[in-house]
C-alpha cells in the first residue's frame, strides 16, 4: 500500500516536472512569431557571408500586424542573403506592444524595435533605449527632413520609413454634381457643408466610437488657428507664456460646428468602417489621415476621391500648411549584442527595390529620395505637402496630461462647451506638472 503511495507521488512529481518544462518551452511562442529554419537558410544559393561568420539570432519586434506579409517575404530574402543571421521576428497588436517592448528590453532580448513615430524621442525613457545610427551608409537613401525628425541632440536614434499627413478627402462626383469648389477658408468650408446637407447628402463621415479619430480633426484645425499665428506656441507652454485657454477655444468651437455635419450616429460608428462607407458614397467628406487612402482605394477602386487641407481659419495662406508626422520606422536597441546584424537588416530594407515594395504595399508617403507612390490620390496628396509642419501632438510635453480626445468628444456630444474644454485642458496640463519630463 505504502509502495503504491510512493509510486503515485513519484508519478505526480514527474507530471509536475513535465508540465513545468512544457510551460518553459512554450513561452517562446507567445507573440505571432516567424523565423526561417536554418535548413532554409543553408539552402540559399546566393550568399554574402563567409563560412567564418558566427551564427547570430537577430531579434525584431513590431506592432504593424498588417505588414506581416511584407516582412515575412523580406525576412526570407534577408536570410538568403545572410545565412548566418537568423531573423526572429515577433509582431503583436498595438495594444500589446508596449508590454512586449518593456519585457524584451528589460531582458536585453531584442535588437531592432519598431517605433510609431519621432514623437517618442521626446520621452527620455524611450531615448535611453536607443543606439545611434549615425554614419550608416543606408541613411543616404532618405530625405534630410525625415532623418532630422529621427535625430536627438545630433544622434540618429530613429529611422523613419514612412510619413503621413492629415487631409480632408472628398467625393469628386458629389462636388462636381453640386458645382462645389474645394474650399480654402473656414467660411467657404462651412458653406460647402451646408450646400451638401441641403442636397440631402450627409456631409462628413466620422467613425467616433474609437474616440481618437477626433484628434485628426483637432490636429488639422489647430494648425490653421493656433500655430499659423504663433509657430512656437507649444514651446512656451512650459512657462505658461501661452495657454490652451483661450487659444484653443476657437479650435473646439469649430470642432463643435463640424460635429453638426457628421453622418447620423457618427459617434457610435467604428473608425475601421468609415473609409469603406465613405468610398460607398455614404458621405461627401472625410477628415482623416493619408494612411486611409489604401482602404478607400481598396473598398471601391473606381471611386473618384480628391484631397484638400482642412481650412481652420479664414486666411488661405495659414490654411495651406500640411500637418505631417513620420509615422513608422525602426530603432536599434542600445544594449543589442547584434548591432552589426541589425544595421545590415536596415540596410537591406533601405535598398531601393525593397523599399519600393514596402511603399507600394503600405501606400504611405515615402521618406526615401526619388520614390513615388503609384496611387493617383497619393500623388494628389503629395502636391499638398509644399508647406509642412509637424502635428501638434509631436510637440506635447512628455509625461504631461492633456485629455484633448476626451474633451473633443464631449464638445461634439454637447456635454462640454468649447470654453470649458480649453480650460480643463490647461488645468490638466498644469496639474500634471510633477510628471513632466
Amino acid at each position, binding site marked *: 500500500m505504502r509502495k503504491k503511495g510512493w509510486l503515485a507521488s513519484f508519478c505526480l512529481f514527474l507530471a509536475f516536472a513535465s508540465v513545468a518544462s512544457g510551460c518553459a518551452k512554450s513561452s517562446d511562442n507567445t507573440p505571432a512569431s516567424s523565423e526561417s529554419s536554418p535548413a532554409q537558410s543553408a539552402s540559399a544559393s546566393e550568399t554574402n557571408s563567409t563560412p567564418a561568420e558566427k551564427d547570430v539570432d537577430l531579434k525584431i519586434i513590431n506592432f504593424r500586424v498588417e505588414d506581416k506579409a511584407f516582412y515575412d517575404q523580406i525576412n526570407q530574402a534577408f536570410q538568403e542573403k545572410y545565412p548566418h543571421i537568423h531573423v526572429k521576428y515577433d509582431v503583436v497588436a498595438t495594444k500589446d506592444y*508596449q508590454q512586449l517592448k518593456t519585457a524584451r528590453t*528589460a531582458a536585453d532580448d531584442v535588437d531592432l524595435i519598431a517605433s510609431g513615430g519621432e514623437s517618442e524621442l521626446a*520621452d527620455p*525613457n524611450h531615448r535611453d533605449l536607443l543606439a545611434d545610427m549615425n554614419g550608416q551608409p543606408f541613411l543616404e537613401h532618405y530625405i534630410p527632413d525625415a532623418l532630422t525628425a529621427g535625430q536627438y541632440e545630433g544622434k540618429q536614434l530613429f529611422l523613419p520609413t514612412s510619413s503621413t499627413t492629415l487631409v480632408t478627402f472628398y467625393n469628386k462626383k458629389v462636388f462636381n454634381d453640386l458645382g462645389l469648389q474645394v474650399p480654402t477658408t473656414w467660411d467657404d468650408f462651412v458653406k460647402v457643408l451646408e450646400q451638401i446637407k441641403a442636397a440631402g447628402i450627409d456631409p462628413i463621415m466620422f467613425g467616433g*466610437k474609437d474616440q481618437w479619430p477626433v484628434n485628426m480633426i483637432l490636429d488639422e484645425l489647430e494648425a490653421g488657428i493656433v500655430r499659423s499665428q504663433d509657430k512656437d506656441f507649444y514651446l512656451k507652454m512650459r512657462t505658461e507664456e501661452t495657454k490652451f485657454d483661450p487659444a484653443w477655444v476657437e479650435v473646439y468651437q469649430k470642432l463643435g460646428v463640424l460635429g453638426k455635419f457628421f453622418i447620423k*450616429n457618427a459617434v457610435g*460608428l467604428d473608425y475601421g468602417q468609415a473609409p469603406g462607407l465613405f468610398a460607398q458614397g455614404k458621405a461627401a467628406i472625410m477628415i482623416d489621415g493619408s494612411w486611409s487612402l489604401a482602404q478607400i482605394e481598396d473598398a471601391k477602386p473606381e471611386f473618384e476621391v480628391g484631397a484638400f487641407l482642412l481650412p481652420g481659419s479664414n486666411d488661405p495662406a495659414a490654411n495651406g500648411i500640411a500637418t505631417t508626422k513620420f509615422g513608422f520606422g525602426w530603432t536599434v536597441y542600445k544594449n543589442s549584442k547584434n548591432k552589426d546584424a541589425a544595421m545590415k537588416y536596415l540596410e537591406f530594407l533601405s535598398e531601393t527595390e525593397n523599399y519600393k515594395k514596402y511603399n507600394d504595399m503600405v501606400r504611405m508617403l515615402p521618406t526615401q529620395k526619388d520614390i513615388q507612390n503609384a496611387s493617383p490620390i497619393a500623388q494628389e496628396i503629395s502636391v499638398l505637402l509644399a508647406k509642412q509642419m509637424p502635428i501638434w501632438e509631436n510637440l506635447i510635453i512628455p509625461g504631461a496630461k492633456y485629455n484633448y480626445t476626451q474633451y473633443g468628444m464631449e464638445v461634439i*456630444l454637447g456635454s462640454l462647451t468649447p470654453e470649458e474644454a480649453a480650460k480643463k485642458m490647461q488645468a490638466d496640463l498644469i*496639474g500634471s506638472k510633477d*510628471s513632466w519630463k
Partner: protein
Amino acid sequence: MLNSNRISRIWPVLVVLPALFLYILFVLLPTLSNLFLSFTDFTGNLHKPLHYIGINNYSRAFHSDFQSIGGAIRNTLIFSVLVTLVQNMAAVLLAVLVNLKLKLRNIYRAILFMPNVLGVVIIGLVWTLIFDPISGPIVKGFERMGIDTALLGDPGWALYLVVFVTIWANLGYAMVIYIAGLQSIPEEMYEAARIDGATTTDTFMKITLPLLQPAITINILISLIGTLSTYDFIMVLTNGGPGTATMTLSLFVFKNLYNGESQGYLAALSMIQFAFIFIIVVVVQHFLRKREAEL
C-alpha cells in the same frame, strides 16, 4: 510506525508545496512588488535606477486625476450593481425553469450556457454588428419605432447596453451554479409543502430561495469581483466612450498603460483599484454570510 506517522504528517505539506511555490511566484511576489513599485518612479526600464517618491503617485491619483478616477468609480459601481443584481435574478429564474422536468431541458441549458464558451472579442464583434448605428438590426428597428439613438455611441444608452451584453455573456455560468444548488434541495421538502397546501410561489419563496442562499452568496461574490475588475467587454464594445460614459476603473488603469504613464503611477492606480474591490467584497460577504446564518 514512527516513520509512517511522520510521513503522514508531512505528506499534506509536501503535496501543497508545488502549488504554494507557483502561488508565491506568480501571485504573491508580483502583488508585493506592485505595492513596492507604487511608491517609486519606476519607468518600466529595469536598467534605470528606482527612486522612492513616497505617496506622490497616490496623491496625484486623488488630486489632479481625481475627477477622471471619480467618474470611473461611479461608472464601475453602476455597472457592477446592475450586472450583479439583474444577472442573479435572471439566473435564478432560468435555473428554476430549466430544472423543471421539461422535454429537451438539456438543450435549453446548453443554449443558455453557450455564450460562456465564446471569447470576449467574438462577443464584442457580434454585438458591435448588432448595435451598428448605421445599418444594424436594432437601430433599424428603433428607427421604425421613432426612437433616435446611436446605441453604443449614445452616452445615455452605452453603459446600459454594455451591462446587457455582460449579463448575456455570463448568465449561463451563474445559472449552472444555481442548478447545482437546486438539485441539492431534497424533493421531500416540496412534497411536504404541497401536502400542507403551499402554492408554487410559496415553495419558491419559502423553500427554494432560502436553501439557495449559499449558491446566491457564491454567485454574487463571483459577479461582484468580476464586474468590479472587468475592462475587456467594455474595451471591445465602447472603448470607454462615448466621452467617458462607460469608463470603469479597470479600463482607466488599462488605458493609462498605453498613454506612456510611469509604471509606478500605474502600480498605485492598481493598488487603489485593489483596495476599492477588497472593501466592497468584504462588506458584501459579511452581509451575505450573516444573512445565510439567519436563514
